[in-house]
């Protein structure tokens, strides 16, 4: 697999829907989009952690993305998907599953179009088709994130 040059250099993102909010994930961090991923609940987990799943023989934690970013709740999603992505710093990244309401499309966003801001895994905001979209940094997710 070709290693991405890093989030900041790559200008392609996956646009996802989380509740009423739209977010973009760095495409280089996205491994796969799957539907109907079987999730095994984990006793003692927080509300963000839906449980564990298996993808390609590899175990990974599955997170509720809308809760993760505090998104405004929306209508029940018609076709929810799980975005399997690498989280954490590049040198110690781990696979996680992110349950989202929909995976919309792949978009190109220039780095200078991003207005820095936000907290946690939200890196900043960008306007996409006259609509505010949050820019996510998955490297902030994981230990210390």
């Amino acid at each position, binding site marked *: 697999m070709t290693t991405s040059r890093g989030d900041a250099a790559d200008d392609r993102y996956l646009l996802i829907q989380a509740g009423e909010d739209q977010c973009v994930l760095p495409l280089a961090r996205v491994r796969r989009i799957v539907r109907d991923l079987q999730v095994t609940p984990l*006793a*003692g987990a927080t509300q963000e*952690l839906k449980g*564990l799943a*298996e993808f390609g*023989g*590899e175990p990974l934690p599955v997170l509720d993305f809308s809760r993760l970013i505090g998104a405004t709740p929306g209508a029940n999603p018609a076709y929810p998907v799980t975005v399997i992505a690498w989280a954490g710093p590049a040198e110690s990244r781990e696979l996680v599953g992110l349950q989202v309401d929909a995976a919309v499309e792949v978009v190109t966003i220039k780095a200078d179009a991003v207005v820095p801001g936000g907290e946690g895994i939200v890196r900043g905001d960008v306007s996409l088709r006259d609509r505010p979209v949050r820019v996510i940094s998955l490297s902030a997710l*994981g*230990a*210390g994130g």
Partner: protein
Amino acid sequence: MKDERVLLLRRDGHLWGVVHDAVRTVTRGRDGYRIWLRRRDLAADDVLGVIENMHVWPAGGALTRFWGEKARGLAVHESTPLVVVDPDSPPAIFGSDAATETSDGHDDQPSH
């Protein structure tokens, strides 16, 4: 990630693993199994067996951040993901009691 010998057990309806090296003995009583470790003993509902050369992936920051328990790692058994517990700090659901250490360095434990 490394391959390990893992004892598979079931507790609270979920599949768990314990590295076999940490297991001293396994006993069975009226209320289930008891997994005797070096410094702990774990209560289990069922013991499935030992898997040789099971891939154990590191637990990762996301799990640690959103679970709150320590884990040795994650594994998959027959498409079912599971947590391989830290033998020195198992999750609370195992009802683990610290075993006392004798003067000769061995723990008090029932013989099997």
